[in-house]
Structure formats: C-alpha cells, structure tokens
C-alpha cells in the first residue's frame, strides 16, 4: 500500500458522507448503490491475464505502413489555394489555369483558415473565378471549347472548373492541362 496522498489532494476530497445528487442521475452516498446487489464475483483483470487470453486468439499484428488500404484520400485528390491566411480546396483537376502571378497561391496541403469554395470565391474575386463545365467535359468525353477557355484565361485569375457552381475535377483530355 502506498503512503498517504498529498495534502492538497486530501483537502479536495469530498468531506461529507451525506447524499449529494450529481447531474444526470448519479450521486454520492450509500443510497446510490443497489441494496440487492450481488456479491463481488471477480477481481478486475490484470495485464498478465489479458495477455494470456489474447494468446488463444489468432491475430496478425499491425499492418506495415506501406500496406495501408488505398482509399479516396482527401489530400491525394485535392488541390489547395491559399491566400491571405485563408485556404480552400477543390477536387484535383478543377484548377484549369493559374496565372504566373498567382502560382504561389496553389499549395500542396491544408494550412490556414479553411473556407468552402463558395465563400472563398466570393471573398477573393480578384484571385479566383469559376468556369462552368458539363459532366461530359469533366469526364474528358468532350473537350472544353478552346475559345471560351482562352477568353477566361485573359481575366488573369485562377480558373476553377465548376458544375452548377460547385467545383468539379476535369480530365486532362478536356482541359488540355495537367492538374496542379
């Protein structure tokens, strides 16, 4: 047995044995313990007992880091645009054009205060602009009209492919660009 608890701890102990209701149904006092409780039936499990029980079960251990399940990871399938401490993300392939002056705003990961695309594009109209595409264009089945794209590029803003106003990835067949 260990020696007496530090004085400060003891001072903080509940000093009364009378019933003290706790929020949500709990409480402090003998009346909160069932009168018809069964006899103590067990001693809590020790590490040795638990380890022994585990040995009876088949277990393959931890998976090597390089065998991680391939899933639709957010970072691997997104592009990030950071400006003035704010950051937004769009699907990888949604950035159709980045003018040289804004190259540094396209970053590889999430850092800063996140805004959804609709809020970010409203706040930074001088940085990004939406460019509507069809699902066929997004899939690369149909190309984006080059003339329309050229006009949009002349805005000098980052072009983000959107479908009904929301960002969408565009296959490189359609945009003629490789996704940042």
């Amino acid at each position: 047995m260990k020696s007496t608890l530090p004085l400060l701890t003891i001072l903080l102990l509940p000093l009364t044995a009378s019933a003290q209701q706790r929020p949500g149904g709990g409480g402090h006092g003998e009346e909160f313990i069932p009168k018809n409780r069964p006899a103590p039936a067990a001693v809590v499990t020790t590490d040795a007992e638990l380890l022994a029980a585990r040995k009876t079960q088949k277990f393959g251990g931890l998976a090597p880091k390089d065998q991680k399940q391939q899933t639709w990871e957010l970072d691997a399938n997104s592009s990030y645009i950071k400006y003035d401490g704010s950051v937004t993300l769009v699907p990888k392939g949604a950035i159709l054009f980045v003018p040289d002056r804004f190259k540094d705003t396209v970053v590889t990961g999430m850092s800063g205060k996140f805004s959804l695309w609709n809020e970010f594009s409203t706040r930074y109209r001088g940085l990004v602009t939406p460019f509507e595409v069809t699902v066929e264009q997004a899939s690369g089945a149909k190309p984006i009209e080059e003339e329309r794209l050229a006009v949009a590029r002349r805005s000098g803003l980052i072009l983000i492919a959107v479908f009904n106003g929301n960002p969408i990835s565009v296959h490189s067949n359609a945009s003629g660009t490789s996704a940042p």
Partner: protein
Amino acid sequence: MKNFVFTAAIALLLAARGGCADFIRQIQTVNGATVIYDIPIANDSGTVNSQPITSATATFQLYTTVPGANNTTKLVKLDEKATGTYMPTVTLQATSEDPHVPARTRADRPYGMNLKVEGMQTDPAVPDYVKSVRMNRSYALYDAVSYQPNGTAGEYADAFSFYQNGSYQSAVTQRLPVASPTKAVGEESFTVYTRTSSGAIQSQLAKATIKVWPVATAEISGIEQDQLFTSAPKNGTLMVKDIYPGAKIYAQIYKGAEVLGTIGTILPSTAVAYSDTVEVPQNQALVIGDLESFVSTDGDYTIEMLTITPFNNGAPERLAHVTFKLKRAIAVRAMMGTME
C-alpha cells in the same frame, strides 16, 4: 445509365454542428474517368441532393472542419458511403456487454462485430470488382488523461474478404498497441470496402467503431496490509482511476480476512454513482474516514474497493483490498501502596 439521387443519410449527421464548414465529396466514374465533385452544405441539418450519378457506382464522403493549432482548421472525414446498381448492402454493427450507444467496451472485455451482407452479385455480366467486399480492422489511440484522440492511428494486418451473402459474427479482443493492455484507451473500427471501379482504390460501404476504455484501478492509502491498529483507523483514503463511464464505486468493510464474494457494510463516504450522461472515464479521490462505528469488536477487518459496471452481469468487481488488525489498548490507571 442509371440515375440516382443521394438524399444524404450522411448529411443528417450534421445536426447541431453549427459553425463548421461541411461539404460532401461525390466521386464517380463517368465515361471511364474519375470525376470528383464537391457539394457545400449550407445548413446544420436536413438533406442534400447529389448531382445525378451517370455511372453504376458512386462514393460519397462527408467532411467537416475542426479547430487546429494557431488559428488554423483541419478537415476531418465524418463518414463515407459507396452506392450503386450492383453494390451489395452491408450492415456492420459493433456490440458490447455495455448497451450504450455509440458502442463502447472495457479494455479487458471482448466485443462483437456483426456483419450482414445482402445483394452480393453473382451474375457473370456484373463486373468482378463488385462481387466481393473486404473488411479491414483499424485503431486510434486516445490520450490517457483527456480521453481524446491523440493522433496515433493505424491498421491491423488482419483483413477478411467476403464473396457471399450472409451474416457473420465474431468476438474480438482489443489489440490497441499500448504498453499496458488493461489500460488501453482508444477505439477500434472495422470497415467494409468495395471497389467502385476496376482500379485499386477502395470505397467504404460500412464502418463500425467501438470505444475502448481502460480497466479501473484503485489504491488504498493510510491503511497498510496487516497493520495493527490500537483504535479504529481514521486516516484511510482511496484513489480510484479510470472509473468506467456510468459505473458505481464503493468500499465495503467486513470482519475477517479477505474472501472474494463477501458482502460487507458499505462505507458511505466512498459510494459514488456516475450518471449515464458521463461519457469518459473518471478519477475519484475518496476519504474512508473514521471506521469506529464499523469495527465493534477487535480482530481482523478487510476493506474492499469495488465497482459495478455493465460487465460481469452487473456483479461488483474488486479493484483493491486491504486487511488490518484491530487490538484496542486498555489504559489502566492504578496506584499501589502499603499501609502499616
């Protein structure tokens, strides 16, 4: 071509999540190419319609923001669901002796994982990649003080593939990678994946997670094993750590040496019941106090610290015990003299 409209079962999770920037990511294969589409969520609750899905399958992911360090935000995936024409319906449920929802158990207790697979395709015309599902097991560790995720997570090597409809049950013992297995704090998840295209990337069909809370421990101070007292002990204290959420704890005293299964007298100052609203383990310091009224005659006495949880059919479990000896001293005041 099939058209589906996803009416956002996952979006319902958004209830009462005010102030967060949430969005649904829709991933599908269109004309052989992957198309990813982000749908912002404007409200805290309700339904969100996806864009029409012009392929046999689609994956939906629900993301939200959580505060990060230095006024930054982090994106966290709350849920993921794959849907489609040929997709099997998968139900996955974690079960425990503790009926609490969401599922939780104690580090030393096995839990159940029930999987039900329906609608698995066998038609030769159906692509092979939707004719099986794969179940993986993963973990996340929690901080032992705050009981919140500490960022350490990973997968176990065990993986299981299912090719047929049916119900599958398994009893599982937690394997959280920590030094002391009874003090493991964290969660384990089973996730069922399928592929929505011929590529290697897996989409989530179902996931079940169970929280694992540590086994409680207690320490009795101020009364040593076999210590001889000449009056009833007055300075005993208890420190109980990792009390299971919603558990009851109490110390009892009885005459004689320690015998498991004895029902003694509850020491009132040590009896605490935690409400059902308590979601994480608790620590509690307690005073045993003056035992005079509990030790009428001299002899050996045992104090046991017990806990009542949903485990062991609700029977109390012993956390700690100590036996002391009481032999009251008799003070005799006498004077001897002689008379002549």
